[in-house]
């Protein structure tokens, strides 16, 4: 049997068990490990409710570490962060489950609020998601709570934390994302197919309008900060939770919403179109009335959308003194 080594002075349950049995029964431990291994072979993240948690995590004879995510995944809870964190946690657990170094030293489990709310009460926890590590020996300490606010929930960060706490190195292997290459392949196939269908009439490849239009699209996409969106992933717009007001423009000049960049793209395009219209009005051979309308529309577009853009810029860049038509 196992002696005192299994627990420290402060571990109350350990002491009570010892008081009860006088020793920690080896059979109970091996039984639990077998059970855990069986579950782990079925799914990499073991789902736990209150009873299971008490029996396999809280109750004393335990020689394995547990990494547990406390979460609220039920749709009525509306926890978007939980869902993202869950995906990352699954990636981590799968990387561990299918790695060659897989042992029964560490198990990954999750407790959903709607299945084990008593566990949440027991641990005096009121936010989800939370990651806790239950070491194989002793009670969880401060550093056994993962600092979600500081480190984020990327699987790599979680793996570093797990390595730190349990000395188990997990190489995170993400399932490859086929969406991008597939989409690209599809696009190329469509273009190739179109070219093949029209192989006797490839005139459209020499069409300047098509090329000019696509070049303009690219330029407008870049100048409106879509690359920033792509890299930083900002929200589409911000909804103020107390008033319910939706703001499309970010208040600071250092950041932007996706909606805002779409607006800017449209405004830039409108000014560009105004300039082109002005030139077309002067050079095209349509009748004079139409050309006058084109000319007025062109200058109107340039003036209106530029001053509008300027006013948005002014709202974002505090202390900017100039405005035009609109403040």
């Amino acid at each position, binding site marked *: 049997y196992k002696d005192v080594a299994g627990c420290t002075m402060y571990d109350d349950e350990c002491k009570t068990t010892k008081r009860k049995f006088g020793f920690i029964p080896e059979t109970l431990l091996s039984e639990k490990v077998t059970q855990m291994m069986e579950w782990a072979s079925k799914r990499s993240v073991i789902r736990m409710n209150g009873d299971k948690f008490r029996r396999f995590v809280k109750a004393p004879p335990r020689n394995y570490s547990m990494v547990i995510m406390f979460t609220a995944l039920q749709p009525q809870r509306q926890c978007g962060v939980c869902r993202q964190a869950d995906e990352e946690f699954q990636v981590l657990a799968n990387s561990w489950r299918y790695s060659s170094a897989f042992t029964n030293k560490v198990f990954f489990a999750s407790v959903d609020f709607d299945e084990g709310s008593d566990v949440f009460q027991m641990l005096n926890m009121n936010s989800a998601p939370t990651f806790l590590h239950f070491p194989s020996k002793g009670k969880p300490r401060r550093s056994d709570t993962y600092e979600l606010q*500081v480190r984020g929930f990327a699987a790599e960060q979680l793996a570093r934390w797990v390595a730190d706490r349990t000395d188990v190195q997990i190489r995170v292997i993400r399932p490859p994302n086929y969406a991008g290459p597939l989409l690209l392949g599809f696009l190329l196939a469509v273009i190739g197919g179109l070219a093949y269908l029209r192989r006797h009439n490839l005139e459209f490849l020499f069409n300047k309008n098509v090329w000019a239009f696509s*070049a*303009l699209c690219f330029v407008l996409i*870049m100048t409106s900060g879509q690359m920033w969106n792509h890299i930083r992933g900002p929200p589409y717009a911000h909804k103020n939770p107390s008033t319910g007001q939706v703001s499309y423009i970010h208040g600071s000049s250092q950041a932007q919403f996706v909606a805002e960049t779409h607006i800017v793209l449209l405004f830039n395009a409108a000014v560009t179109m105004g*300039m082109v219209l002005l030139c077309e009005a002067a050079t095209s051979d349509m009748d004079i009335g139409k*050309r006058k309308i084109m000319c007025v529309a062109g200058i109107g577009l340039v003036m209106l959308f530029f001053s509008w853009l300027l006013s948005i810029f002014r709202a974002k860049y505090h202390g900017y003194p100039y405005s035009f038509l609109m403040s």
Partner: protein
Amino acid sequence: MAEHHAASDGKHKASANAGGSVHGNSRPGAAGGGGGGGGGKGGLSGGLTQPAGWQSLLSFSILFLACLAGFSSRLFAVIRFESIIHEFDPWFNYRSTHHLTTNGFFEFLNWFDERAWYPLGRIVGGTVYPGLMVTAGLIHYVLNLLHITVHIRDVCVFLAPVFSGLTAISTFLLTRELWNQGAGLLAACFIAIVPGYISRSVAGSFDNEGIAIFALQFTYYLWVKSVKTGSVFWTIGCCLSYFYMVSAWGGYVFIINLIPLHVFVLLLMQRYSRRVYIAYSTFYIVGLILSMQIPFVGFQPIRTSEHMAAAGVFALLQAYAFLQYLKDRLTRQEFQTLFFLGVSLAAGVVFLTVIYLTYTGIYAKIHIPIIASVSEHQPTTWVSFFFDLHILVCTFPAGLWFCIKNINDERVFVALYAISAVYFAGVMVRLMLTLTPVVCMLSAVAFSSVFEHYMGDDTKREKPPAEDSSDEDDKRNSGNLYDKAGKVRKHVSEQEKAEEGLGPNVKSIVTMLMLMLLMMFAVHCTWVTSNAYSSPSVVLASYNHDGTRNILDDFREAYYWLRQNTDEHARVMSWWDYGYQIAGMANRTTLVDNNTWNNSHIALVGKAMSSNESAAYQIMRSLDVDYVLIIFGGVIGYSGDDINKFLWMVRIAEGEHPKDIRESDYFTPQGEFRVDKAGSPTLLNCLMYKMSYYRFGEMQLDFRTPPGFDRTRNAEIGNKDIKFKHLEEAFTSEHWLVRIYKVKNLDNREPLDHKLRSVVPKQKYTSKKVAGHILFCCFNQK
């Protein structure tokens, strides 16, 4: 002083506006000039005997005013403060230039700088782009030869503004080649004052980019010229300009990729001609050989992946030319078999190369810089685009549209330039610099086309302007692809009709509004330059409520203290940001500096800063540190100080020493970074904290706040009782911005007390007991 400042401000605005509006008024004349010598009876020059002479005088004076506006709007910092080198990197450039002028060119190439990266040192001659230093040194030499005795510092300070004038001229030349003279003048005015370029070229910002943009534009001008003429003369000029660019800035890679791309796209568009063949073959060979003469570049052009595109296009062009040659010699049937053979051979070679490159890992390297830049450098928000380019960012797509609609060889080039530069600027905010010139050119094209149609008088011109076609020697291409001359003719006749139709009212309204936009652009540029880009950051200024100004000169005060009061070979430890300044101003040895090539060394300094005093002392002893210099902004509320940068030190140290330094130790349990009582004890006892707040707890800045109140972080500090064992305060500047500590030598061994000797065994016994007790406690606590 304030009045003087306001006056100068007004002057700048006026000159900038003058540039814009004079230029606007000149539109019809300039457009006529661009049209060429055929017409010559423009309305503006009616009554003048030699209109061509007037036009060139007008263009010259506009160009001169643009250069002047560009030069003077970069002088805000000089007028407000003094002629001083700005920021960090320029200090290194200045120091190297100084070394060059005092010791000569060859000594500079062989310079081993033992004052940097102690104890490693740095081979400066082989690890810098020498173009900047040589340029400044040469100007200084010539001026001194003429007995105009100027200090090298003034040459360095005013180099960037002078070169921005040259950039305006080369932009004018390039745009004139692409569109017409009017657009060229407009582009010159834009580039002279646009903030995206001023941000890197104000007086005192003595950095590579200041001269590199001139070299970039001039190389492109000569390239376009050589593609247009197909003459070796222009191509050699292009190579020399490229050589200058390579010697000046690492951004030459942009040129060596854009020009091959241009040639490649021309081949795809079936615009191959002998001119292109001559231009590119000469450029590639001569340019390659010249670029390899720079020690820092060396054999990179034939080794690294970013130069491989140029080599590939060179091979392709030779093959294509060879096939063209065979086409003339062989029959159709023979040629077709040969063609298919050649294509399959080429495809096989390309395939094998790709496989080889993939296996050797070179292919992956291509992507690494982009990935690295994405994660390390900030991508660009639309606000930055608008801030740096204002109206130009909205209008330059229109210019691009006109260029693509009236395409020819050189407009293909500018379109590719715009598309690639806008991509890089979107990825990385620093590369806005390479986007700015092309935006200026294309916006100028857009504005110029509008003005051309709306500013002309209603009197009819007799003859359409006949622009000289770029491909006189290539009849075939000009026949079916270059229909420019015909187009222009048509276009002008339509314009005449339009002039009859649109009427003077509409036209003058459009013109007025357009001029108003340009005026707003000039005002915006002046405001941005004055407020955002004209701070030297070595000298700070604060303004009181009544508008009077305080100059905070703490940095220089501290650096001169170091220079005057410490041993010549003293080693100063600081965070890497201040390495160049310490070397440049204090002339003392530094451990790390802004040339961040050795991460482990930086991490060691970071570790010393973030450990407790005794651990830090060991590190500092091992690095022979004599003084430690830190920046502390808590007294004046300066936010760029070392406590605010501190987490970076911790992170970098953690990257190299994960066992000793942990970022999470410096946060509160709630994950906050706080310097007050609630802050983490590790933070409150680390060396950086102690050095920053030593004696600060006694200091009451204000009657409303308690003593030891940090104005930058708005908190009362948590550890007011700071005592040092191994360090002592050596110097604190007037506003406490810079604090310097001396690292003490090891203490003498304490003399043994005779009385204690007799009780040694007894003491040993008690200590053991005490130790045992402590152990037990620890165990309990666990």
